[in-house]
């Protein structure tokens, strides 16, 4: 056995055997091994991590997925599942000694059931396509990650994707009913049910957000909601970021749960405006977008109330979208914030921490101090309603050492999120990217419990190994082992 360039063991005899057997299971065009065919699969949406897989398999039936898994299990070859590859944490980064299992061919909407307000989908169905298909019945699928035109429902489940409406309508975990999954051993399991709950342990919750570590998702049944009668969006400008933060708390305190509540700071506003021409007030230090939905009567009432609150909180300007086109335009600016920032800087690094909302002023102040210290500008985009902060650190990867400094800056932000009672990731997942930060958020005993959970599904550790949950050894090497009551966990372990 030799070792590949990325340090993973590779056994050429096993690999040749694997590829030969895969070709027996699948049609020729569904097994890719040429370098140029593998290239499109070398990374997901987090392109700083790239690696070519040993082989890409493109099954189109559940039986084929089962056969591939059985084969890989028998040969002890690791498997990484992949949807549209829009993930932002390197969760679908391939292994040079493993199979990249693409679910791209599972594209069919299997059934829409308007009577029970649910839809059954293959995992490769795009998020937005669900709502488009359900629209004819007055229904829609609520979670709307900003990549919704491209990302697929299977990936949404694996990452527990959110979106701008999740304060009111929840994340993926709140909007799915049933999954069909294939385990590493090739077993097909039905998890959850078409009913509102199912007997025994909530494996549906466990599977959602498990980042392809527990099983491969081959079918998803989602809950659909009635489209609200009306949605109205308000845009408020502030001359101070902290006043905008106060306004967010005041809206919630008034007993109103907006469908979406988003905040952008000056750098983000300017970039989004130049890109989308949404009519944002570019001299503002911060803007808030507040969407209210529900029945006509309720929206009218809430719009009046929220306008009043925004003015009282010191908004310099409050606009209400006059029609649907303007509402879409207000959102277009926000939804294009990432690509917009991509235009003003050679590279940007998107963070995804969550914090209790009351900590916003403190965290923003600290980020701006660090921004000066590192000499790296930051654009802040914030799902203000649910405390999910996306600071975008602007940098130039071609400048010597700038990526390393950016990563260090990012790490400090995530560490701060944990310190103030938040989390290192609100919606992008841990993947490869935040594997070290997991050591900050969790103690050794908690990480060990996660490994035990994985082993219950995948005893040999062949599914997406090395992602999402760090080994204790890795945490020791990273040097950020959580110190609990002044004691290091597992003092018997050697430290490096």
């Amino acid at each position, binding site marked *: 056995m030799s070792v590949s360039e990325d340090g993973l063991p590779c056994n050429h005899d096993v690999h040749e055997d694997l590829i030969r057997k895969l070709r027996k299971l699948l049609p020729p065009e569904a097994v890719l091994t040429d370098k140029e065919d593998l290239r499109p699969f070398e990374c997901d949406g987090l392109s700083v991590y790239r690696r070519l897989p040993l082989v890409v398999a493109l099954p189109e039936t559940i039986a084929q997925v089962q056969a591939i898994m059985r084969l890989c299990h028998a040969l002890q070859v690791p498997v990484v599942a992949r949807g549209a590859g829009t993930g932002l944490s390197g969760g679908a980064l391939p292994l040079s000694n493993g199979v990249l299992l693409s679910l791209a061919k599972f594209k069919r909407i299997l059934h829409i059931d308007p009577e029970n307000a649910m839809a059954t989908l293959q995992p490769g169905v795009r998020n937005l396509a669900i709502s488009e298909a359900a629209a004819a019945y007055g229904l829609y699928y609520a979670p709307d990650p900003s990549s919704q035109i491209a990302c697929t429902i299977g990936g949404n489940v694996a990452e527990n994707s959110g979106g701008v409406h999740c304060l009111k309508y929840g994340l993926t975990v709140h909007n799915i009913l049933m999954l069909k999954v294939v385990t590493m051993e090739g077993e097909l399991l039905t998890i959850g*049910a078409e009913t509102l709950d199912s007997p025994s342990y909530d494996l549906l919750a466990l599977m959602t957000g498990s980042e392809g570590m527990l099983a491969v998702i081959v079918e998803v049944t989602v809950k659909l909601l009635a489209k609200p009668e009306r949605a109205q969006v308000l845009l408020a400008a502030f001359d101070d970021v902290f006043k905008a933060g106060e306004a967010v708390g005041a809206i919630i305190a008034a007993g109103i749960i907006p469908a979406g509540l988003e905040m952008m700071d000056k750098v983000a506003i300017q970039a989004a405006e130049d890109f989308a021409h949404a009519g944002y007030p570019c001299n503002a230090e911060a803007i808030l977008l507040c969407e209210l939905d529900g029945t006509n*009567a309720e929206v009218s009432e809430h719009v009046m109330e929220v306008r009043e609150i925004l003015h009282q909180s010191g908004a310099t300007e409050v606009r209400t979208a006059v029609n649907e086109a303007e509402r879409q335009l207000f959102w277009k600016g926000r939804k294009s914030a990432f690509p917009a920032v991509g235009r003003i800087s050679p590279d940007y690094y998107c963070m995804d921490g969550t*914090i209790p909302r009351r900590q916003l002023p403190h965290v923003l102040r600290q980020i701006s101090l660090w921004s000066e210290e590192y000499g790296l500008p930051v654009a802040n985009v914030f799902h203000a309603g649910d405390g999910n902060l996306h600071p975008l650190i602007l940098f130039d990867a071609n400048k010597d050492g700038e990526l390393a400094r950016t990563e260090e800056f990012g790490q400090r932000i995530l560490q701060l999120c944990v310190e103030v009672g938040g989390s290192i990731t609100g919606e992008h997942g841990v993947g490869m990217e935040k594997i070290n930060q997991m050591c900050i958020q969790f103690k050794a005993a908690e990480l060990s419990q996660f490994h035990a959970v994985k082993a219950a599904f995948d005893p040999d550790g062949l599914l997406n190994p090395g992602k999402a949950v760090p080994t204790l050894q890795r945490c020791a090497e990273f040097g950020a082992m959580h110190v609990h009551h002044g004691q290091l966990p597992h003092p018997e372990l050697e430290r490096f």
Partner: protein
Amino acid sequence: MLERDISETLQQQVHSAIGNGTPLKIEGGNSKAFLGRETHGEILDISAHCGIVEHDPRELVLTARSGTPLKDIEAALTEAGQMLAFEPPHYGDNATLGGTIACGLSGPRRPFCGSARDFVLGCKLINGEGEILRFGGQVIKNVAGYDVSRLMVGAYGTLGVLLEISLKVLPRPAANHTLIQECTQAEAIRKMSQLLSQPVPVDAACYHAGHCYLRLSGSEQAVKHAHEHLGGEMLEKSAPFWHTLREHHLPFFDSANPLYRVMVKPAVPPLEITGEWLLDWGGAQRWLVSDEPIALIRERVATVGGHVTQFRGGAHNGEIFQPLAAPLLVIHQRLKASFDPHGIFNQGRIYANL
């Protein structure tokens, strides 16, 4: 309100149980002892582990110790104009937060607002190695690590001892009305299922004794308009009706025959099983009082893709919960072993071999 942290005492008790190989029976207010299978063991009483640890209404999050009485939590929330949106049943005066979450129970608002597990954001627990672990957190969005906190919901204490739970809370609606209409069960099912694709502010829907009940909630104007749109008589005493339904205090629930919880898709037409029916959750959760054998009830319900729990009455050492498919049971057993390797927590409460 009483505030006490006895997590160290509880942890010591777990350690001695591991040492002696004595199984433990976790108990809070003992209000839900009738649920699930019989379990034996030394009692681990969490009721003294109580108090609200944190509640900042602007964050929409409440954290409390597991032994905190549910009614204390509800009182604190009411004072802040908030509520537990899953409207948990108490089934007794002493119901605790821990028991509510461990049993995963939700009330009439569930199909419209979400279940107990939907509102759980994080928890602190003692696992079967006697370690105190934290999962999730106090923020609404958090995808770091597997969702162990939600796994605890409905696990009936078989995976660990819950110490603290963080929940998302919501503002109380400004107004609510209940509409009542006379109809058959089949008509009620059609009516309730049609509401799923209409933008109406309904947050509870049930069928009982020849009447369909719809609760409308939201702003004054929204409720008024929806009432005009949907029609029907307004029920004078709205709150008491939903409370007696939630707590199983309606005369329907006083029967010598066992009570079954039948879960189906909401639009499934009336099931032909002899007995009395009450439909809650817009038709998705159906209560059946029947003297038919459970095997026969399960067989019929399986034909429409549903499942059945023996909720009250009957023998408490059989298959109370719907049996699991074999490969799924294996995963359950491995998960149980991963949290509770010495098999000390609430053995057999859900399934004989779990």
